[in-house]
């Protein structure tokens, strides 16, 4: 059980303890989606370099433990409001890699049919909100989804992500204020990856931690190691249970590192070398794979196979997305208004 403090939890435990008596299928599924996320994003980086994409590419390297770990603590009918580092959460929910690639290519088969693009994808049929650029615009929307669940007496919850930099905005503050006084079933997850574009943490916030901001809203705030999928999963599961029980929202901070540039066009030479060094030893996908192997939940060959399957899946996705048509402009004025 996670304790509701703001101290950093989850010093790495021996694998067996960490894994405990969890469902090995769930663990393998989390692993599989983390691996798939990495494979798809690696493939997309190659596509970016090769000129397959329209504009820039935003990736979530080293965010996989957060995006998959947190999403895996939800039910499929729970609402999800992800950001640009959360491919893993999308995939976990059922978004297809080729749809995401199609979004970065402006293809007719992207979730918006090429109207929006890049990271602006989502699917309400999977209970995933499709965010606009403005960060974190998904937070107020997430309070609304949670409000609707409560309004209807459903026990659904809503998980929303934002970055460290996004915590300084109106949307963050006003959402957490409303969610806390209304006791809405929200989980607000801050992906602290040390930078907001080029802006380091010290220019973003003077608070002791991002989790500490929870005090301003009278909600629990916990800080977890964002490279540790199990720590993320557990903290989220606890917040989900709290929300489902009608006890209101929680704030979680997951600490990781943005291992690529803000987007792929950004060489990110403003990043401290030491941070790259420190985090190059903390690849969340590798770490989790090792935990599972050590705990005997996964064997080395199976792990290899998972990687190879993911690679092939990503290759096939690219092939499909490339072959997909560009949209037809004929109906571009349709749908500005709903019927």
């Amino acid at each position, binding site marked *: 059980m996670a304790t509701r403090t703001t101290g950093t939890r989850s010093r790495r435990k021996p694998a067996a303890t960490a894994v405990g008596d969890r469902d090995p299928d769930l663990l393998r599924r989390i692993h599989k989606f983390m691996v798939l996320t990495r494979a798809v994003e690696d493939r997309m980086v190659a596509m970016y370099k090769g000129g397959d994409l329209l504009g820039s590419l935003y990736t979530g390297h080293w965010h996989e433990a957060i995006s998959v770990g947190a999403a895996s603590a939800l039910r499929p009918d729970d*609402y999800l*409001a992800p950001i640009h580092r959360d491919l893993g959460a999308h995939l976990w929910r059922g978004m297809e890699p080729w749809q995401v690639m199609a979004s970065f290519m402006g293809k007719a088969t992207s*979730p*918006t049919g090429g*109207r*929006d693009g890049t990271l*602006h994808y*989502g699917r*309400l049929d999977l209970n995933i*909100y*499709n965010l*606009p*650029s*403005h960060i974190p*615009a998904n*937070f*107020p*929307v*997430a*309070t*609304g*989804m*949670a*409000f*609707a*669940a409560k*309004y209807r007496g459903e026990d659904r919850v*809503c998980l929303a992500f934002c970055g460290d930099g996004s915590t300084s905005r*109106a*949307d963050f*503050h*006003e*959402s957490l*204020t*409303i969610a806390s*006084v*209304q006791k809405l079933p929200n989980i607000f997850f801050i992906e602290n990856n040390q930078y907001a574009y080029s802006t380091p943490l010290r220019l973003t916030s003077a608070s002791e931690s991002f989790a500490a901001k929870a005090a301003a809203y009278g909600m629990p705030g916990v800080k977890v190691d964002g490279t540790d999928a199990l720590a993320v999963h557990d903290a989220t599961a606890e917040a989900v249970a709290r929300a489902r029980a009608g006890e209101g929202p929680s704030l979680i901070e997951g600490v990781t590192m943005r291992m690529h540039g803000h987007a792929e066009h950004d060489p990110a030479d403003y990043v401290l070398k030491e941070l790259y060094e420190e985090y190059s030893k903390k690849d969340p996908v590798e770490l989790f794979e090792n935990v599972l192997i050590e705990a005997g939940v996964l064997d080395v060959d199976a792990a290899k196979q998972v990687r190879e399957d993911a690679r092939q899946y990503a290759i096939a996705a690219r092939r499909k997305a490339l072959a997909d048509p560009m949209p037809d402009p004929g109906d571009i004025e349709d*749908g*500005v*208004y*709903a*019927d």
Partner: protein
Amino acid sequence: MPTDSGTATYLEAVGLALDAEMDRDPDVFIIGEDVGQFGGAFKVTKGFLDKFGPRRVVDTPIAETGFTGLAAGAALVGLRPVVEFQFADFISCAFDPIINVLARHHWRTGDPMPVTMRAPFGGRLRAGPTHSQSVESYFAHVPGLKIVMPGTPEDAAGLLISSIRDNNPTLYLENKYLYRRLKAKGPISLDPIPLGVAKVVREGRDVTLVTYSAGVHQGLEIAEELDKDGISVEVVDVRTLVPLDVETIVNSVKKTSRAVVLHEAAKRLGYGAEIAATIQEEAFWHLDQPVVRIAALNTPTPTSPPLEDAVIPQPAQIAETLRKVARA
């Protein structure tokens, strides 16, 4: 709770319509500052908390960005929020979610976004530059929003009902000067009045006055007066700015050959610019005169009566302009 007196005020008409929609559809709720026990700054939701309870009558912290975004999220998953802004001036604090979250969402995704935003706007209450704004021009450029500006109690009811039932984000602007000054001519009908349909509220021959909101009763009064001088004014109430019923406007102008546009908002890029530009595009060869815009000066709205009266169009000025255009 509002009950229909047979001579409901503009304010009561809004309340009656909202009450009826909340009765009819359990997915409709109202959210805003002080809308609960207090019944709203102007008392539109008086009694609503007792009748519908705090689940459906939601007092919020002062957080316009937050609660507008909340409405968007709730709408996306099937509710039909009605948001009350305490004064239309404060909608500036929700400009971002309105244009970037609410307005564009359906076009981007195909998901409906049935949010109605109610806001009391306008001047003549000596409330000064940040409590008197006409806000329609901030929003009319943005694709995906509808903008509704009723000028009578009857339209206030019927158009609010349509706004709430509409699957798009709708900005419904209540002229607060009319709230207690305008009365219905009989029991309020709770039939929806379709959005996007203008109304010729007075037929005339010599000049078309295109207007909305408070301009409608002003225009009608002045038209009566000018009638005595043998000037026949046709008054078109556009009722919804977006969508705009261009056909009704243009047909009227084709008949009268002269057009004046009237609103209380400042002139520069007021909605009158769109109407004037459209009329000359669509009816150029029928025009005997340029389309004239009557609007507030390009200043903020002052507080002090002599100043405010100098800024906002006054009846004498409206009459004079109509006279000039009709006779030129």
